[in-house]
């Protein structure tokens, strides 16, 4: 089995994101960037499946500017075999990403496509689903457990009511939840070896895909500052305030 894993470069989750003064977006200059956290889970799961002998090749793919390659390099350091970087500058929306991935799937013919359930920068949660639609493949989203069977996957999904277990036929798309596994650390020797693994470079224009954004972003604002709380003297006062002022009980 061959697994394609999609990874995205985003602002590191520990960084306090700042809105640009003119409201046209967020500041990315001088900001630490990393792999989108659930994408790390997707890579880890693919590597685990390969280690169990059920997959024979893992290809890591990313879409973005030159530096997005770092995320592929990281995937290679923890066990992916080779990488693909589709170069696009500027904002790429999920629709364009899924069209690009569609082309890559046609070319690579993987049995499974893994990716994070959503990216922590735009929180869209669309790419996996759109790709499934383009390919007309089954999809298992928000996966917190994956069991590989003969020609299908048994996937446990994180849903509002609890856990849902579904079976999907291979080929399939799986979007991964943070609960799926604990991503491993890349060891120093493996990082060195990863530097020698190939990353294929493709220009998005060569794929014939229009990556122009379809969504017009009007304004980006910081959430309003939280107002200071008050201290209440007794439980009675709290209940009274919740009832009469906050009107929540």
């Amino acid at each position, binding site marked *: 089995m061959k697994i394609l894993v999609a990874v995205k470069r985003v602002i*590191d989750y520990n960084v306090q994101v700042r809105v640009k003064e003119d409201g046209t977006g967020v500041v990315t*200059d001088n*900001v*630490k960037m990393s792999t989108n956290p659930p994408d790390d889970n997707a890579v880890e799961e693919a590597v685990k499946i390969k280690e169990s002998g059920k997959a024979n090749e893992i290809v890591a793919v990313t879409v973005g500017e030159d530096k997005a390659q770092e995320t592929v390099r990281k995937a290679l350091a923890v066990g992916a075999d080779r990488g693909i970087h589709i170069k696009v500058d500027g904002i790429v929306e999920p629709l364009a990403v899924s069209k690009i991935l569609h082309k890559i799937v046609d070319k690579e013919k993987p049995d499974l496509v893994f990716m994070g359930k959503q990216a922590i920068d735009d929180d869209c949660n669309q790419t996996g689903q759109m790709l499934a639609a383009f390919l007309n493949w089954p999809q298992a989203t928000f996966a917190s457990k994956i069991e590989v069977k003969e020609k299908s996957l048994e996937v446990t999904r994180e849903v509002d009511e609890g856990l849902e277990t579904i079976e999907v036929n291979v080929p399939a798309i799986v979007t991964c939840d943070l609960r799926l596994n604990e991503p*491993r650390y890349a060891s*120093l020797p493996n990082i060195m070896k990863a530097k020698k693994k190939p990353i294929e470079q493709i220009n998005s224009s060569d794929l014939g895909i229009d990556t122009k954004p379809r969504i017009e972003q009007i304004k980006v604002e910081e959430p309003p500052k939280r107002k200071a709380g008050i201290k209440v003297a007794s439980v009675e006062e709290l209940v009274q305030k919740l009832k009469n002022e906050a009107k929540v009980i």
Partner: protein
Amino acid sequence: MSREVMEYDVVIVGGGPSGLSTAIKLKQLNPDTNVCLLEKASEIGAHILSGNVFETRALDELFPNWKELNAPVKTKVTKEKFLFLGKSKSLSWPTWLLPKVQHNHNNYIISLANLCRWLAEQAEALGVEIFPGFPASEVLYNEDGSVKGIATQDMGLDKDGNKKDSFESGIELHAKVTVFAEGCRGHLGKQLIKKFELDKGKNPQQYGIGFKEIWEVKEEKHEEGLVMHTAGWPLDQKTYGGSFVYHAENKQVFIGYVIGLDYKNPHLSPFDEFQRFKTHPSIKPILEGGKRISYGARALIEGGLQSLPQMYMPGALLIGCDAGTLNMPKIKGSHTAMKSGMIAAESITDHLKDNKNLSSYEDKFKKSWVYEELHAARNVKPSFSWGLILGIIFTGIDQILFRGKLPFTLKHKHSDYETLKPANEMPKIDYPKPDNLITFDKTSSVYLTGTIHADNQPVHLQLKNKDLPIKYTLEKFDEPAQRYCPVGVYEVQKENDIKKFVINSQNCIHCKTCDIKEPSQNITWVTPEGGGGPKYGNM
């Protein structure tokens, strides 16, 4: 337990200006030398914090074409000011009356973190293997006692030291020469100084704690290229310190404060002094209407030549601020750190080629301009132990009249951990509450550092004696760790009338102040898991 081993000609610990300069120079001198550089931060630059007004002397030597190579050294100093602050007044000191070492025309206002990122790109292009996220946690020795290399930190241990599923063993890096370039108070450097008695016959080392914030200020308040320093308020005459305010590019102002860690009053809170400083009538207007976008702190090394340890030992060199090459009166250490690294590369290349002894480092260093600078600077810092006024008068005579050539050398008498007086003998200081516009608390500040340490890992701030903080340090010194730590790692909490010393190690920004100032030297800073610590941007 046997660990995987990798062999190199040279292993460098630390990706700051000195380590990166060593790596680059090694490759320039001999492209065939195998060089590996380790950095504990998640990326090069993420643990770098510095003012910084940069003198390009070392960079000019390393890359004469740095301008064409688009080094992030762009904002030339255009104007200088020096203010003496009283509580509400200020006296502007004419710059022609400042010692020559404090003149900055020809220098640049830079982000040292960004310069390091650029140096790392140059180094990688030359073939240096750089590994961020891998702290060197242990020095390895050969049977003859010489340094064999280092081991990297194990990853994936829980707080009791048990292996988690994600456990990844550290590896051994063996080298013909290991270069320690960890910066001020490097934790391996500290061990080496002790083991090889590198500080024998030297004065005790002196340190300071430096704070820095980056502000985006209103356009009309911004004067790109302006460099301003202050002395005086809010510190008393006996406490060594001062501020910097640098107007960088993109409407940013780098504002910071440095306080000598030889302060005596355990009630003093360096963080709150810095916050209070910003409320001075000659400072506040610059910041008003602006926004604080970054915060950080780092200890710096101030002992100068008198405290500079021997920088070579069998199999290894100690360079930059890991040894202590900062020029205090100049308030600059980047160019001297870089140069010390370049000299290291020359000595190592000779050593690898002709088996020349590493002690050649000392001769080369003594013949270099770094030594000349540090020699001329040597009497300034110790003279301030007499107080601000006498310090200034002496420094005027020493630096302006004699240009650092007075025929004697003043001594540093005490280590910084010895200087605190008992809490009941010293006045309490009443710091104003933060207004959340100009001044802030530690909690909101640490948030801006982006610092993180993976949960459930061994605490990297180790107590030699667990009972000492409550039984002794709290009683005698009112536990100053609560105040000298710039991010509130240390707290004394009360639970059912029992006092408890709490270490919030996940907040640590690797400044090393606790390791330096703890009055009984009871706290030891060791490396946490790789990638932990702050995530500074353009600091």
